[in-house]
């Protein structure tokens, strides 16, 4: 019930739709148009091809949905008194948090489906849908939802929360191997990249969906799972429900 209402509320936002779906599709078309996809099924993934970019873009925009989108929405609901009103109903904070996590998961799966279908149709990207890719997708959505909920709960001013979300999201997107391989960056930035959850999320999708490198995907999955657990717990902790 919460997840349906929250998802519906999100999808009816023009800015939400543009940023959540149109923008990533646009980037895929641009990058695919520039680099194309000379990879054949079964061939090792080239580093400047649509096959390389697709999982990174999916991961990056699931990240921005959580870190920017959910922060904005959460802050807005807090400011408009919606959370205050909800806390006077029998709805528990846990139900509210789980509902939002489920909503973000639904949006993440929808985004991934759109991107994968386009990638296969336009660039002949050969995608593997398996348990690893689905679990990584799910965990990645949870992870960044936790970040968004934490920011929305901790920061009083919605504009400041939104700004902080952008400051976190865009450098992470640039440093995590979304647009170029991490190995092409200076060594000190590679060190930074290794500390970023998006790196493992993007690699996890790349390894499970494209390269079929399941042992590497498993390692990425474990790292994403640990980040997700910590950040979801923090997000739940910082979501203001009633006065503590």
């Amino acid at each position: 019930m919460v997840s349906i209402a929250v998802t519906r509320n999100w999808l009816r936002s023009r800015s939400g739709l543009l940023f959540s779906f149109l923008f990533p599709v646009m980037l895929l078309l641009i990058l695919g148009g520039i680099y194309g996809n000379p990879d054949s099924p079964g061939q090792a993934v080239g580093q400047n091809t649509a096959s390389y970019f697709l999982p990174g873009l999916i991961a990056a925009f699931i990240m921005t949905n959580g870190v920017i989108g959910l922060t904005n929405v959460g802050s807005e609901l807090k400011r408009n008194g919606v959370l205050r009103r909800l806390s006077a109903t029998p709805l528990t904070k846990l139900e509210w948090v789980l509902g939002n996590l489920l909503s973000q998961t639904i949006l993440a799966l929808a985004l991934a489906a759109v991107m994968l279908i386009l990638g296969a149709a336009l660039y002949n990207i050969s995608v593997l849908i398996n348990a690893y890719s689905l679990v990584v997708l799910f965990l990645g959505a949870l992870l960044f939802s936790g970040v968004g909920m934490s920011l929305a709960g901790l920061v009083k001013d919605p504009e400041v929360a939104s700004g902080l979300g952008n400051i976190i999201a865009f450098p992470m997107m640039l440093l995590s191997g979304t647009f170029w391989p991490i190995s092409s960056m200076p060594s000190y930035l590679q060190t930074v990249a290794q500390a970023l959850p998006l790196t493992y999320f993007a690699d996890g999708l790349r390894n499970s969906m494209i390269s079929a490198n399941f042992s590497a995907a498993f390692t990425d999955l474990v790292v994403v799972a640990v980040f997700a657990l910590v950040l979801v717990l923090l997000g739940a902790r910082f979501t203001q429900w009633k006065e503590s």
Partner: protein
Amino acid sequence: MVEPVVSVEGLVKRYDGLAAVDGVSFEVQKGEIFALLGPNGAGKTTTIEILECIRQPTAGSVKVLGHSVAASHGASEIKKRIGVLPPEFGALGRLTVAENLSFFAGMYDTSVDVMGLLDLLEIRSVAKVRFADLSGGLKQRVGFAVALVNDPELILLDEPTTGLDFETRRITRKVIGDLHAKGKTIILTTHYMAEAEQFGDRMGILCGGKIIALDTPAALLGKFGGGKTVIFKSGGDAAFGTLRRFFDTVSMDGSDVVLPFERLRDLEVALTALVGRGLEVEVVLHSPTIEDVFLRLTGLKMSDTGEAN
């Protein structure tokens, strides 16, 4: 003896050592409208939020519908049976009015007649309009409908008409009257004295976190209203000086001259004296109001925006 719906004893709420509510006690019986009247910052909203179980008391005992607000099981039981209208109601902005009602209704085990609620609050025409696109008055009416979505036993209305348009105030007051007639128990907070007097079966006057008077409006007026007065509008020093020769109790309020009305004979004497001096003034017979009660008890006047000075 029937247990009261609400029982508050020695309620204290402190923020950083400052007492927003400082030893408040009252009971509300079933089917009663209890008005909490006071200026901004008096502690009304804090008190009501504690009854709603979204704030915890610092000290004191608060029971709603037989359950303690301090116990988590008690709080969840209370929330199933109360309806709440906060001062500025917020809902999911991109859902329609009907969708928001259904969303809130889904949190309770009771079935709800969404259309019936829309008709009650006269908002059926905007059922398919997104909440964010509504005016402030319509949003509050949606909030009132949401407060009734579980057919609650106790309804908590925090400043239900403050700052709203005439039509919304009219509808809100009508619905409060309807709910009262159905035997619902209502607690409302307000800084509108006339509203408290009109609706409250009993009222508590809150000032500085304390209840300074608690009784029926008639009893409060009798105890603290000071009796009827005759006001000679804009009579000025001339009228005052004339009447002072006959009455020790005459006083001035600005340029108005005020005489306690005890006997018809006094009025005759006053009018004769004024006419004899050639003074023509407007005469108003003033019955005490809750505003007078508040002024006598606190020495303060309350403005339409709830500021007391």
